């Protein structure tokens, strides 16, 4: 069993192969110098801690050794030979597989309007990126964040925490256009403004250029903003080069079926790099960029590499931490016919999104700390069940969601 990509997904798959009783050889290949580590802290604690922290490990070398997983770091996989069933590595050697998992993740989308090689333009994907970025976040520096999505806003919050001045530039009319209802985005925006983050929404970017030791950010409407550093968070692209050169089918990422199988039955793909049909949403093809999805699919891919042939059943779920707020979303809200609000006190609330037939299809919540976590988790289970909870009950905080689950 060979796994290309040693992030959250690849590492979980390797562990899951062992947990499911496979005792043959397992090789996990990653192109970063580190063993697998968790990426969520990269936009938060890794940036805000007083002392530069170490990566938060998914597994240390000892755990891989104990499980007899050969974890090869700092090694790019160059090509897949599907006839010979081998993967050629950058070191010149090849490794043969019986089943292959591609878990190569996604990379930040590059911004063509910014100089490619500048040390003042930062993208965030790896621990090394976060370490470089840290140095810019200090009092006296002005940071421009391009993109008001999750990465951009988490970076803005972290930069403020470190004392830097922050301006966020978002071309869309509001922040968090993708996947977050306006009512919740407004709470997030207010919180950022209260922390003195300048939010420029509906403002297109013209160009970023270096001017001596600073950056000049020009907006489409003519405004010029000087900055010490620009953090770019304008989305991510699936890493599909290996799959593409091997002739595997692509469709907004590596196209897999409901069991994560690619167009080659001996090759699976999982995590940010693949798109898959989601049965609970009528087989709609989606690609998710989230930590939980990487874990769930890594684990499922491992079982299916061993022949389980199980379809994806997980409900999409993600969270974001910004300042003292946590936002959690379960499900996909697109196509909702009805939205019901449930207030949980202290400003925390959840929006339930119901389809025309009454089925709960998504729940989005925001509040301080973990105020919405329990109810979002229960909503996730209601969504998975295809439940049709009554709007009145959802809107009434005294009605425990757990009781609806039992119904």
């Amino acid at each position, binding site marked *: 069993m060979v796994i290309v990509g040693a992030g959250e997904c690849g590492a*979980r798959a390797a*562990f899951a192969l062992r947990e499911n009783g496979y005792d043959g050889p397992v090789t996990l290949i990653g192109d970063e110098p580190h063993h697998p580590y*968790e990426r969520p802290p990269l936009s938060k604690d890794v940036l805000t801690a007083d002392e530069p922290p170490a990566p938060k490990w*998914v597994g240390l070398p000892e755990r891989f050794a104990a499980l007899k997983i050969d974890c090869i770091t700092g090694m790019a996989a160059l090509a897949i030979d599907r006839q010979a069933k081998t993967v050629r590595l950058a070191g010149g050697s090849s490794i043969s597989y019986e089943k292959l998992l591609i878990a190569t993740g996604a990379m930040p989308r590059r911004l063509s309007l910014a100089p490619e090689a500048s040390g003042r333009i930062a993208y965030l994907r790896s621990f090394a990126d976060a370490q470089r970025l840290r140095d810019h976040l200090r009092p006296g520096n002005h940071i421009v964040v391009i993109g008001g999505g999750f990465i951009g806003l988490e970076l803005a919050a972290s930069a403020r925490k470190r004392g830097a001045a922050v301006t966020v530039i978002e071309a869309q009319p509001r922040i968090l256009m993708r996947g977050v209802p306006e009512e919740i985005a407004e709470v997030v925006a207010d919180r950022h403004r209260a922390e003195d983050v300048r939010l420029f929404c509906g403002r297109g970017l013209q160009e970023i250029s270096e001017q001596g030791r600073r950056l000049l950010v020009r907006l489409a409407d003519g405004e010029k903003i000087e900055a010490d550093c620009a953090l770019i968070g304008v989305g991510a692209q699936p890493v599909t080069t290996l799959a593409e050169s091997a002739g595997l089918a692509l469709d907004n990422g590596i196209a897999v079926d409901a069991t994560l199988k690619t167009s080659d039955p001996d090759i699976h793909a999982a995590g940010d790099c693949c798109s898959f049909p989601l049965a609970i949403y009528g087989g709609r093809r989606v690609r998710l960029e989230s*930590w*939980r999805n990487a*874990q769930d699919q890594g*684990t499922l891919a491992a079982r299916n590499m061993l022949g389980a042939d199980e379809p994806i059943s997980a409900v999409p779920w993600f*969270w974001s931490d910004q300042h003292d707020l*946590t936002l959690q979303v379960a499900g996909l809200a697109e196509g909702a016919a009805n939205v019901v609000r449930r207030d949980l006190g202290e400003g925390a609330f959840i929006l339930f999104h119901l389809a025309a037939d009454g089925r709960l299809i998504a729940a989005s919540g925001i509040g301080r*700390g*973990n*105020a919405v*976590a*329990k109810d979002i*988790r*229960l909503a996730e289970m209601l969504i998975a069940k295809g439940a049709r909870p009554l709007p009145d009950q959802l809107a009434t905080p005294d009605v425990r969601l*757990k009781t609806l689950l039992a119904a």
Partner: protein
Amino acid sequence: MSNWIEACAADDIEEEDVIRFDHAGRTFAIYRSPDDEYFATDGLCTHEQVHLADGLVMDDIIECPKHNGRFNYKTGAARGAPVCVNLRTYPVKVDSGKVFIEIG
């Protein structure tokens, strides 16, 4: 030497639920199982120091509110990614409608 501490009233906790209990600079989670037994563990998840009392209790599992790490709260055993370090558990007794835990 035993050190039983009164934590809460038995009916402060709903069935199949959990509350937080802080004592002497430490934080604990106290559970009432679906079959009406009481249990106690350390209050913070072993993954990222999140209060488990904000999490969901289902049967004998407590799920961390932040990243869904799971533990069996009766034994403290870690039961799923991302957690791999077990939770410490503490003896519990119920006396005259009050819940006591032994924090030793």
